[in-house]
């Protein structure tokens, strides 16, 4: 009743009701089932499941590689979005369409393709191996796969914002004597920062949950290259349902906190750029 007062648009009641229903059915109820199941074998089992050394190593890898991949995606994604928006070149439409391909490709296919490329006798791997760089079956390989998956999220978040940014402001900055670097850091970057953060959050979240592409390239060695989703599946196959959900709960809570943090950050950075 309280929120209703501010609304000038009609239909708040039904749409809000639908929102709550949808969120409950699709998100909250399944998730609460996960929480419930994880507590079914007691606190002790929960604690043991999430504390065993290979699980801790997997958390480290999952969060570490996802973070690295999201950061790389932000850097490269920004660059690609910039090129796609600001320059004209032959084959631009094609390049633009290519960006979406990782969305559509079954992730297992991506994983198998990346693995055959990067193994020691693969097309790329054979040139990297003499340099002492091993990609497939190492944490580096995991990061490569996650970057592949995460990149389009950043590009597609940044692209429209960059396209909408006013060129006048940049021109004004230039005419007022700002250097190119100053124009970039003081004028362009603040505009796209919220979009970059969104892209980062999406890429990061997607990377945390990614399974299909990673299991092929990871090699799945305990303590070295096992990701958390793989351990969850392994635990399920050992009929340890509550252990599997325990891992999932930790993953969920951590991800939720991280995403909440990113959202708050985004809100703050938007406050600075948008006119009140």
């Amino acid at each position: 009743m309280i929120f209703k007062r501010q609304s000038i648009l009609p239909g708040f009641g039904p749409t809000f009701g639908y929102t709550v229903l949808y969120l409950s059915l699709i998100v909250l109820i399944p998730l609460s089932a996960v929480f419930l199941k994880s507590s079914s074998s007691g606190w002790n089992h929960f604690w043991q499941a999430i504390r065993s050394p290979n699980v801790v190593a997997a958390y480290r890898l999952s969060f570490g590689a996802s973070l690295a991949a999201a950061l790389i995606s932000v850097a490269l994604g920004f660059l690609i979005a910039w090129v796609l928006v600001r320059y004209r070149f032959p084959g631009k439409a094609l390049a633009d369409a290519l960006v979406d391909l990782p969305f559509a490709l079954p992730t297992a296919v991506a994983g198998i393709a990346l693995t055959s490329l990067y193994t020691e006798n693969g097309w790329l791997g054979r040139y990297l191996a003499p340099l002492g760089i091993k990609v497939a079956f190492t944490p580096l390989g995991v990061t490569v796969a996650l970057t592949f998956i995460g990149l389009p999220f950043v590009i597609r978040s940044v692209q429209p914002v960059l396209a909408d940014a006013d060129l006048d402001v940049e021109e004004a900055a230039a005419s007022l004597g700002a250097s190119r670097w100053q124009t970039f850091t003081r004028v362009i970057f603040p505009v796209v920062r919220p979009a970059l953060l969104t892209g980062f959050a999406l890429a990061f979240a997607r990377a945390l949950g990614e399974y299909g592409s990673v299991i092929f390239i990871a090699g799945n060695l305990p303590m070295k290259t096992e990701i958390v989703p793989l351990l969850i599946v392994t635990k399920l196959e050992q009929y340890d349902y509550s252990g599997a959900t325990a891992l999932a709960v930790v993953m969920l809570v951590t991800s939720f906190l991280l995403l909440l943090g990113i959202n708050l950050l985004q809100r703050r950075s938007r406050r600075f750029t948008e006119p009140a």
Partner: protein
Amino acid sequence: MTSKTLLISALTATALFAAGPVKLLNVSYDPTRELYQDIDAAFAKQWKAKTGVDVQISQSHGGSGKQSRAVIDGLQADIVTLALAYDIDVLSEKANLVPRNWQSRLPHNSTPYTSTIVFLVRKGNPKHIKDWDDLVKTGVGVITPNPKTSGGARWSYLAAWGYALKKNHGDEKKAQEFVTRLYKNVPVLDSGARGSTTTFAQRGIGDVLLSWENEAFLALHELGKDKFEIVTPSISILAEPPVSIVDKVAAKHGTTEVAKAYLGFLYSEEGQEIGAKNYYRPQSSQALAKYASQFSKLTLFTIDEVFGGWQKAQKKHFDDGGIFDKVYTPGP
């Protein structure tokens, strides 16, 4: 009018359905695809000749543990033919789908055919791999799936353990050292047997694949005798992949009789010969004699002799915190 037609067509559809072929679902593990293709065709023919009823058998394949979990979660399997007894034990323990004594209902511990673990190496055997000891040498890449998810990999692990135990006169500590060194040589742990075969054969990773004997033969024939060869170790484990009807599901479907006949067919001379043709070691001495030349002779020990059965082996080696976990965790 229309509703009447609809009703009539619905009724005929039901009648047709009821008179249609009997349907069976056989839920099996990874490398048995080719075997059951042959078995299903032969059994359907025999059943039709005997009873006049068509039987349509569907197959489901995957890692043994995963398959068993699918059945617990409600996959409507009339028959399970899995990689190891533990995966059928849980059907009784967790879901009460089969009686506790399921394994004593059919001859040979419900195992119509057996297999063992052998080595598949690259042509010419460049790393001179002859026996288990050669697998722990530095610079040898060993390919085997994760024992936590793959039935075949559990047999491989236990074969290695059994070898080390025999060699060191029952010293478990030495056996643990041996398997630890062996798994240090494993660069990739796939989740199932087929995945490992692909890693070894198609991707060219590693020097030796620990494999089901039947899978090794299959790889040899499918991928080329000019590329690989089989090395039989001096000693290995007698792998016993058991079969059972899933009593509750079969009773619900009314397929108990045909499912029992299907399993019986596996033990018949015809079934045994199909098994042998697909490189499974048959129980029937007649089929074994006929195909003796394709199976090399080696000493085989059973899981009951060395490990005291699957329940014990599973708990000690593969459960969380078991010896397999310690292989990868530094420290004691």
